[in-house]
């Protein structure tokens, strides 16, 4: 599930529930649609409401990173729990400087 807020050129997507291959595909369509329309300078993916995530969440972040680069903006990933961080940390995402 995803709810979005747009403010000061910043698009924030509040993700909630379980992120897997199935739900990541739905989130991707929603977020990319809005980002293409609004061309924000910053896209924030907020994982505060996420109770479960598998490696599909990493693919979701990497894909949005590339998407924002194409649109000339930046990506930030915020509010993730320790158990989500364990998965992000395996991926080399830290090297991209998007984890907050």
């Amino acid at each position, binding site marked *: 599930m995803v709810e979005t807020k747009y403010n000061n050129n910043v698009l924030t997507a509040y993700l909630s529930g379980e992120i*897997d*291959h199935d739900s*990541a595909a739905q989130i*991707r369509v929603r977020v990319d649609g809005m980002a293409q329309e609004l061309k924000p300078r910053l896209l924030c993916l907020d994982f505060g409401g996420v109770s*479960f995530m*598998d*490696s599909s969440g990493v*693919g979701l972040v990497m894909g949005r990173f590339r998407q924002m680069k194409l649109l000339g903006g930046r990506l930030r990933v915020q509010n993730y729990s320790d158990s989500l961080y364990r*998965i992000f940390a*395996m991926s080399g995402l830290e090297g991209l400087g998007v984890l907050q």
Partner: protein
Amino acid sequence: MKILNEMKLSFPSKSCNEAFARSAVSAFIMHLDPTVNELSDLKTAVSEAVTNCIVHGYRRQSGTVYISGRITEGGRVTVKIRDKGCGIADVAQAMQPLFTTAPEEERAGLGFAVMQSFCDKVRVKSAAGKGTTVTLEKQIGGDD
């Protein structure tokens, strides 16, 4: 090793069944009174294996995903996830972190790495054209 409980499950390779599969496995081990972390580790590993059957094994067709679970004395949980899909030609290569054959679908190549880091033991048996079986083993609670 005395077997305390067993279960079998099969379902079509639809992505909505990923959530069903990990919930079913978590319900199966619930009476072992797992910690929040043990439960979330096993759920995540099962989700990875089932997703792989659906995304890679049955890539352009549909098929059946089979799960069997077993609890042996001392709280040892074994979960087998099997597909009769395309199989993996080079298992060692497939298990390398960040290796993926589906980058255009935003796969990260982390599934096997996650299974290995969240379980005590991961075994993969696969033959090209025949399918893949992943066996996950995890100790729930202290092994007394």
